[in-house]
């Protein structure tokens, strides 16, 4: 199971559980026989909150190190790609792009299983830089913000054509703002 399906499944399980719990509690209030109300609510609530806090702390400890800021941080990138986003296209080059005369270089080809770094900025409004694999799954992303350069490091595990979509609403041409590169 891939991470996308896993996320959806975790969510749906939790949602169904909450729904069933809600229904069970509702049913219990229709014709209660005898006193079924919860005793010692203060203690039970305190215990539940401690448990919930513990679960959240464990989740924090597991997930924080997987944040994109730490990924491949100690591996020098084998290739640099400069990306300037502009309504409504991406200009990509192996060399730094002159913002006064932005032009793309040769088409981008990146190595498989080696860290690469995208240096992403915008020449006008905010854009997103979302990289999709050949199965149309979002692999990674960063934002393209004018006046700032976001450095996105990634290691592509699969060869193929990767598509870039804009993931920050930027105007009428937002859905057609795309580009691509090859990993081999």
């Amino acid at each position: 199971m891939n991470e996308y399906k896993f996320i959806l499944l975790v969510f749906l399980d939790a949602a169904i559980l909450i729904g069933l719990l809600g229904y069970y509690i509702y049913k219990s209030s229709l014709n209660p026989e005898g006193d079924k109300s919860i005793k010692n609510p203060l203690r039970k609530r305190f215990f539940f909150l401690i448990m919930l806090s513990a679960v959240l702390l464990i989740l924090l400890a597991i997930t924080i190190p997987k944040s994109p800021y730490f990924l491949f941080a100690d591996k020098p990138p084998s290739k640099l790609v400069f990306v300037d986003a502009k309504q409504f296209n991406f200009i990509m080059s192996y060399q730094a792009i002159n913002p006064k005369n932005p032009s793309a270089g040769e088409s981008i080809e990146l190595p498989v299983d080696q860290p690469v770094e995208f240096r992403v900025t915008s020449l006008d409004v905010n854009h997103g830089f979302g990289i999709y694999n050949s199965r149309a799954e979002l692999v990674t992303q960063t934002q393209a913000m004018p006046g700032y350069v976001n450095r996105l490091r990634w290691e592509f595990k699969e060869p193929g054509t990767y598509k870039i979509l804009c993931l920050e609403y930027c105007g009428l041409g937002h859905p057609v703002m795309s580009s691509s590169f090859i990993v081999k």
Partner: protein
Amino acid sequence: MASLSLKKVSSAWIITILTLFICAIVFGILMRLNQGNDIKLSPNGFYTLMTTHGLTMIGIWTVAGMVGIQYLLSRYTTVSAKLNVFALVLTIIGVIMLWISTFVGNFHTGWTFLYPFPFYIAWAKWATPLFLWSLAVLGIGWFVWSVGILVEILKKYSLKQAFAWQHLSKKDPEVTTPPFILIATVSLVGIILCLITAVILLILFFAEYYSNGSFKNDPLLMKNLTYFFGHTLANEALYLGVALLYELLPEVSGRPKFKMTWYIALAWNFTMIFVLTAFFHHMYMDFVQPLGFQMVGQLASYFASIPAAAVSALSVIFLVYGNKIKWSLTNILFFIGVIGWMIGGIGAVIDATISNNIVLHNTLWVPAHFHTYNAMGNVLFCLAFFWWVANEFAGSQETTKSHKITIGLMLIGGFGFVLMFYIAGAASVPRRFAFYPNELQIGMTTATWAAFFATLYLIAMLAIIWEIVRKCIRVFYSS
């Protein structure tokens, strides 16, 4: 006790809010039909609808909570109907200006109007200042109103008592703070901070606009200000709805009122702090943001859920479980709203985890979670209040009529509608696309189904709203 003038202005508010709500749902359905390739809107048409839908929805459900808070506050202290009229007039003017800027001027930056987008004019030139001024008018109205309500609370309770701090040190303090007062205070303080931030944001926009570009803003600062204002306002709006629940749910259910305890006081004081820093999760994909803020974003997003959501959900569970409850539409709506809030909260926590956010950020997972805790959470809290108050206006006893069909339609429509967002979000479909590229076919299919489910939700809402509005109108004929 609510005065007749307060009843009349509350009625006017309710009718205005619900009329705008119906319009905004229709805008949303049109957007989903276009994404499903079932109708053909121009990109301009789609994005003006998107901008109007987002801002209208967030605005009306914030003021809906405020209407409820001020009305119920009249049980504790004297409240000014004039303040309410002032806010209503400015809101109507602001909404008209906003809709003219979008529908006539074609302004279409989305609710975020992320700097410097409003200055890259692809619409009527006058629409940018009109849009910014419309927000200023709304902001002034709501700021004065929020401060006014807070002052009304402080006429009866000291600041310390309004925050229920006396409950932290003493088991049985002389003055007890009702949970409603504490939650309203905490939420209003948050809303006032949001609106101050909005004022700063607008001043910076105006400074650049009227200096003809000789003054330039910093995009990172502007983005932080935008999300502090927008995200926090959406959260505080929900908490206003929760305050209504704390006040009304036990009463209409025939159960003892919720009592203030040290942990409820502590929970909501913590919420006030956590919720103010949770907005950093909107900036996860801006890697230039200081790392500490990113970590605070995840921590605050996780722990904002414990005090408010967990404590409130448990309070409701203990109130209902195993106790004979007099169910009516009011408490059914509150109860389903809590379930929607919890489910939306799970979706939010998943998205607020940075390592998930890298594949969920700005996909349809984002509208999935916020539509869950709004359409199936806060909207239901506020509708529960509207239903209850409409019956009070009409002098009619609320019947225990089950409204089974309406509730069934609302549940299937509401949860079906958001489920389509979750499925598409997990399938990497981007948000805010007027149409989808061929490889994202699932985006189209789910959009069509979402429009179908949203129509069911709309039918259920129309059935409830019709009865509320009919009863609210009667207030204008009473003396």
